[in-house]
């Protein structure tokens, strides 16, 4: 069973609709007990890093989630804000985040580009990865973001995108994966990527 974490300011319902369309058995989860039963965990996201961190704290999920992902290696996919909060710190509101991966989230430069970035942009695959199976290199995905991550460890980069500068648009480390774009809103290739995640085993103990 794939679980989509349901928190205020998230767009969990869109992810559920997308998973249903590709016949993945899935449910919304917002309790510790439910989290523990899942084969795969998806953390969707719209909104701010602060609101997302606050919401996860309020639900009391952070400790269990961290243990499931870092110790039990349950496959995890973060989407948009769900990517940004995996790192140490976000400049958006100056928020300390989960710190599962090293890096800092910074804002696009308003002098270079219109912020937020909204629209379809190409993802250049920098590594082969099971998530990309059946997904052409340079396929456009749908982005909505004012911030992006600066990786400390380039080994975590799976694909990158240009918007004023080149930024990481998909990352992966062992069982942890995340997309800056909204796979659930990126048409048939977005659905393919979600399907690859839900079928995959990735990092096995």
């Amino acid at each position, binding site marked *: 069973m794939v679980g989509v974490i349901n928190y*205020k300011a998230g767009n969990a319902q*869109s992810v559920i609709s997308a998973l249903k369309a590709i016949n993945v058995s899935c449910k919304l989860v917002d309790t510790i007990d439910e989290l523990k039963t899942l084969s795969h965990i998806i953390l969707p996201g719209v909104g701010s890093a602060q609101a997302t961190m606050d919401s996860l704290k309020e639900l009391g999920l952070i400790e269990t989630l961290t243990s499931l992902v870092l110790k039990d290696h349950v496959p995890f996919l973060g989407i948009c804000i769900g990517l940004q909060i995996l790192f140490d710190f976000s400049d958006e509101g100056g928020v300390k985040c989960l710190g599962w991966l090293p890096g800092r989230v910074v804002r696009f430069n308003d002098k270079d580009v219109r*912020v*937020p970035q909204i629209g379809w942009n190409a993802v250049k695959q920098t590594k082969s990865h099971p998530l990309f199976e059946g997904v052409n290199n340079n*396929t456009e995905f749908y982005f*909505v973001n004012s911030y992006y991550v600066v990786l400390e460890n380039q080994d975590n980069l799976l694909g990158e995108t240009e918007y004023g500068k080149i930024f990481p648009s998909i990352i992966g480390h062992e069982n942890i994966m995340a997309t800056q774009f909204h796979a659930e809103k990126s048409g*048939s290739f977005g659905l393919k990527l979600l399907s690859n995640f839900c079928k995959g085993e990735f990092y096995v103990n």
Partner: protein
Amino acid sequence: MLTKRIIACLDVLKGQVTKAIQFQDNINIAPVSDVIKKLYNDGIDEVIFFDISASSERRKIDIDVVKKASELIFVPFTVGGGIKTVEDMYEVLKAGAEKISIDSMAVRNPNLITEGSKAFGSQCIVLSMQAKKVNPSSSIPSGYEIYIDGARVSTGMDAIEWAIKGEKLGAGELVINSIDCDGMLSGYDINLLDKICKAVNIPVIASGGAGKCEHVAEAFIKTDVSAAIVSSMLYSTRLERNFSIEEIKNYLINEGIPVRAHIRGD
């Protein structure tokens, strides 16, 4: 490179997609679910769903229609009409929308823009505005005045000033509807769009007036708009013939305009 978006904006009245001329005289096209499914399968980049009578009838948006529609498409989906509070926004987001469009209600209560962007992020708040050409004056120096309630009520506000204020208040994107050009099929109001694009640093969406591929290309070549709404071209029965999304995109590609590769949704 970020591509230019082709958007369908569905004016919904009692579960039916309709099309108007200058915000009036709506004709029925088809049920929402039929139109939305076809648009997705044909490769639309984004859909805006607008409950056109919610605001003027002072009622809430029809959440069930939004929910059903959002289950059919896997491209971005913006919803507007009759949204008065942050709670209304949350209802619509929970029903599967990515973005909220506010228009008349934002004019009545500009704080709504700020509250919405604080709660859900500015990328979630689309400020839509209806602008009409008037004689320039001291209160409306640009010569474009903001109207509300389906272009029926004038506000005395300058469109450029409202766009700048909207960005400051926290809007993440602007939809600029030209009342003069709406449904006329003679091209967008290029002058208006250019002025707005130069005044703000958030994405601007052109709306009102596209009747052929040349009009869409013109908006992208002559202004810095990020997206164009092409509703009439896709399905208005008032056109001699409609255009497919693929046809519009191929035209733009030939003009050197970056667009998302044409991919059918089915």
